[in-house]
């Protein structure tokens, strides 16, 4: 990708020029990368709109842990974020076509995705877990699921992997987690599986508070990263620095407690993570 690199340098140079013309500096960024922040420029940021506790649109405001991360990164880089919805299947397209500058939306860092986009982070280590009714005692982990009904959303590979490993499990799939939560509360399915962060977000919702609990035995590792344009190392480094400050300043812990804490959720081992170097 020679061309991509050259154009990235060109963009960086242009940004630097325009900054110099404006005569504004931005705090916390060195001049080595060339592009020194956005000088309050508005950028589009992809988040989830439908995940309580992580990225949720309520009215005209956005709230959740991922939203806090997105806002903090934007603040550190001196950008004004404008949120757009990034549904899972469109995340790579949104980034590679430049429709969003970066995405913070329960975006697990995987090798197949790295072929299309670059990641800064991880900023959170999540894992697949189970959500059950709060009076459930029989289900303590995936190996106690035999003969039980498990719910997940279509396209989530984690659920079908679980079913392959434990053939006695019956899988009900819907197009949204909300329907799973309804079926779980009605007693039609016994457990709901996906990343523990998403589960905690639902358990912490006012309508479900006290009725649901996260089991707490994770059986996969999902490293959430900030998705950005492939090969944009300069920008990636800036985001990584911002994420490190987010964690070291205690904002990370505050945000986790605020959005996922009400469900009694504690981040698992490896949290808060150290962001990997950009390549």
């Amino acid at each position: 990708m020679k061309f991509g690199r050259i154009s990235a340098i060109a963009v960086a140079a242009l940004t630097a020029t325009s900054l110099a013309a404006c005569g504004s500096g931005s705090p916390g960024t060195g001049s080595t990368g060339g592009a020194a922040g956005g000088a309050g420029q508005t950028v589009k940021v992809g988040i989830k709109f439908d995940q309580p506790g992580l990225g949720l649109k309520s009215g005209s405001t956005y709230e959740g842990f991922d939203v806090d991360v997105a806002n903090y990164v934007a603040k550190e880089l001196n950008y004004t974020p404008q949120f757009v919805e990034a549904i899972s299947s469109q995340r790579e397209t949104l980034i590679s076509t430049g429709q969003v500058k970066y995405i913070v939306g329960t975006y697990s860092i995987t090798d197949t995705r790295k072929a299309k986009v670059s990641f800064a982070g991880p900023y959170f280590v999540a894992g697949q877990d189970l959500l059950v009714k709060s009076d459930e005692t029989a289900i303590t982990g995936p190996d106690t699921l035999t003969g039980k009904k498990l719910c997940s959303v279509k396209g989530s590979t984690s659920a079908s992997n679980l079913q392959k490993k434990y053939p006695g499990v019956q899988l009900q799939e819907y197009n949204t987690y909300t329907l799973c939560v309804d079926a779980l509360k009605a007693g039609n399915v016994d457990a709901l599986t996906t990343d523990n962060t998403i589960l905690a977000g639902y358990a912490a919702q006012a309508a479900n508070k006290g009725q649901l609990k996260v089991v707490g035995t994770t059986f996969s590792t999902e490293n959430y990263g900030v998705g950005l344009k492939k090969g944009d190392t300069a920008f990636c480094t800036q985001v990584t620095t911002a994420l490190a400050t987010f964690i070291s300043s205690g904002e990370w812990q505050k945000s986790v407690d605020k959005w996922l804490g009400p469900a009694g959720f504690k981040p698992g081992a490896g949290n808060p993570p150290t962001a990997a170097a950009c390549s």
Partner: protein
Amino acid sequence: MGELFATYPILAAFGMTLLLTFFAAIGAAVLGTLVAVLRVSPVPLFQKVGALYVNVFRNTPLTLIIIASNIVMIVNLGFSFTEDIARDNVYWAIIGLTVYHAAFVCESLRSGVNTVPVGQAEAARSIGLTFGQSLVQVLLPQAVRGAITPLGNTLIALAKNTTVATAIGVAEISGLQKTMTEDRIDLILPIILVVAAGFVVITLPMGLATSWLSGRLAVKR
């Protein structure tokens, strides 16, 4: 592309799409004919019931019908056919597709009935046939032949609408497409091509058969 076919049950998923299409088409043909009979019957109450059915189901989004068949019928009312969740969802998806498309089948047939000159019905009644006899012997045979094209359109729409069944987890092709996209974003173009080509293979013969039949069966007047 070979990797996709080796890793994912693509053919089985298209098989499920065909199965949903096949049974829902039969169901919709039967139910749609019944509703059409109600709508063209001489009894005002029956006409109203038929019109109500068509207006309710034709104007309700299919996604809503499919999700309601699971969330309302299974989850809240407990109407399950079997303990096996996957099969239960297939049955309910077929029922949901049937009630939705029956409304369109009914309207197609009614448009066919309107192609039959009024004189035919009057002649049938005047030689002493009852409403039922004139309907079965005179009106419907001509109506079906006049309605081949709109019925074919409904069938093609049905084949593509089966993708909505993924909302309640039926293992058909659009659900598999989501799974494949989630795992293998690097192969997104081959995935889209395979799914699109599969639907062309399914629907194109339907369209060709419809055109051929409508020419062949047209009532020469």
